């Protein structure tokens, strides 16, 4: 498809076109202490000219030369795809016991996800397999190819970025930094094409297109390799010891699973009103790090933090393949940034691979 170029005003016109089409817009926004995906009502609510300086267990908002420079904020698309809590059943006590029915959520309108990265899109695809629920088919994705990366990024190792795969989004933008900010846009679906037609654009020059592609290639070349997914899959498939050291640092607080774009585990519980006449069944996010997660008669199956960390990381990079035909890790690095003590999944998986080969 023909590639177009957009100025910052062109991006604004794209935003306005989305609003006119009735979309709620989720994009990178300044949220107290960070920049992350949030619903915005106005173009100026987006985090323009802001970036994030991130590292293991650390994030600070900084100025960015790029218009949309923040990578590594805590929110992925998970919150919109898989709500933290929802009512799935409601019932009322009658003369013959409880009668009730499943509660189907009312959609609050189609969402346009603006400025999503290749890893975010990969996360949404992987999560959709696990929860058997895609983003709403009326939703729209406007991707932003990465022209920089954070020290916590490892999408190239997981094969999920920095480029957006064919069909991965409706519209793909690449920000070309220069004296003036400029974006190269490629419509990747008929809906993306229709949207682009409503925005202020110009045909992109061959030089701009080349520059945009080169920037993404440079990111791909410069990002350090983390671990080999195939090695991780086999090395972590079998039960093995060696998790005590990481468990001495792990607080079992559950932050990694909450920020992970693919961690889908939930708990289901019932609520009643004080007179026990109405009841609701609630589904809410859980984590394999909570004691209740593996609790059966008598107590939790995995009571030690070492057992819980092993469960999380082994499922993520190994057993996920058997279950869903893909890795559960997309290399976004959120678990590294938002772990308060900066536990680095790259190091832990690499160490586990090393332990498994040392035993052979």
């Amino acid at each position, binding site marked *: 498809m023909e590639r177009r170029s957009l100025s910052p005003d062109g991006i604004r016109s794209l935003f306005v076109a989305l609003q006119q089409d009735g979309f709620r817009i989720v994009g990178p926004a300044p949220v107290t202490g960070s920049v992350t995906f949030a619903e915005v009502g106005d173009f100026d609510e987006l985090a323009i000219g802001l970036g994030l300086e991130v590292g293991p*267990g650390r994030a600070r908002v900084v100025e960015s030369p790029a218009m949309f420079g923040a990578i590594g904020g*805590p929110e992925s698309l998970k919150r919109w795809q898989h709500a933290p809590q929802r009512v799935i059943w409601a019932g009322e006590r009658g003369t013959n016991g409880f009668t009730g029915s499943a509660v189907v959520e009312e959609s609050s309108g189609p969402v346009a996800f603006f400025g999503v990265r290749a890893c975010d899109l990969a996360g949404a695809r992987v999560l959709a397999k696990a929860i058997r629920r895609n983003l709403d088919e009326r939703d729209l994705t406007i991707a932003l190819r990465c022209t920089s990366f954070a020290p916590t990024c490892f999408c190239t190792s997981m094969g999920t970025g920095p480029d957006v795969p064919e069909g991965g989004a409706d519209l793909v933008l690449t920000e070309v930094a220069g004296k003036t900010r400029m974006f190269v846009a490629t419509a990747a679906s008929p809906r993306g094409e229709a949207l682009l037609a409503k925005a202020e654009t110009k045909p992109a020059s061959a030089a701009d297109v080349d520059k945009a592609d080169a920037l993404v290639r440079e990111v791909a070349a410069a990002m350090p390799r983390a671990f080999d997914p195939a090695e991780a899959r086999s090395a972590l498939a079998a039960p093995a010891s060696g998790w005590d050291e990481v468990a001495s640092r792990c607080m079992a607080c559950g932050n990694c699973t909450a920020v992970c774009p693919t961690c889908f585990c939930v708990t289901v519980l019932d609520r009643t009103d*004080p007179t026990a006449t109405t009841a609701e069944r609630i589904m809410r996010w859980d984590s394999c790090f909570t004691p209740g997660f593996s609790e059966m008669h008598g107590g939790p199956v995995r009571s030690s933090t070492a057992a819980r960390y092993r469960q999380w990381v082994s499922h993520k990079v190994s057993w996920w393949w058997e279950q869903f035909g893909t890795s559960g890790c997309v290399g976004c690095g959120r678990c590294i940034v938002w772990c308060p003590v900066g536990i680095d999944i790259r190091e832990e998986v690499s160490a586990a691979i090393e332990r498994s080969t040392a035993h052979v």
Partner: protein
Amino acid sequence: MSPRVAVFKFASCDGCQLSVLDAEDELLAIVGAVDIVEFPEARTRREPGPYDVGFVEGSITTPEDLERIKQIRQDCKVLVTIGACATSGGIQALRNMADVGGYASIVYAHPEYLDVLATSTPIADHVPVDIQLYGCPVSKEQLIETITAVVAGRRPDLPSHSVCVECKARGTVCVLVTGTPCLGPVVRAGCGAICPSYQRGCYGCFGPSSNANVASLATAWEAVGMPRPALARALQGFTVGAPEFQEAIRAL
């Protein structure tokens, strides 16, 4: 017949009992569902046991308390402790690391009139407890949830995981990772993660979470410029008496 409910007080500030009265929107429904027969904070008429459910506020600090809690346990089918004092000894457990006689001589003109124990201890150190509601004060939501669960004959939803789970569910950006010291990763959820939603670190009102790893949290505090003694001081709050925090304070 509605379940007979009693509310008792030991060494405490009455704040948790006030949380019961603070449940304004739900109070009428609760009063309709249960029969509150003993509640000295709220009513003058008192009825003797046995009770179906007894809520106990406060910690054990006197020889008399030791006897009274045993009788209450005998009188209550289900015993629920409410608040940081009842579950970990409260702020008054600071004396567990000091000489109570020394404090008494500073505060009272005639300390010889006092008859107190050397320590302030939680109810569960003395009698078996069925349900514990943590917090300073307890969460109104958890209190209502517990009463409704007991009425409905189901298990109340009282998670023992960290405050972080609540922060993430409500979409609060981690204050610790962004530079503010916070006890959240080692503290039990239940308050709804209020303080971090106002960009303040967690103060630990609900006491330690399960699998609390304070030694590791110390490295995160150091990373935001708070040395180990500062973390030890931060743990000496409303839940200072919790064994996990006592151990950490000694180690830090």
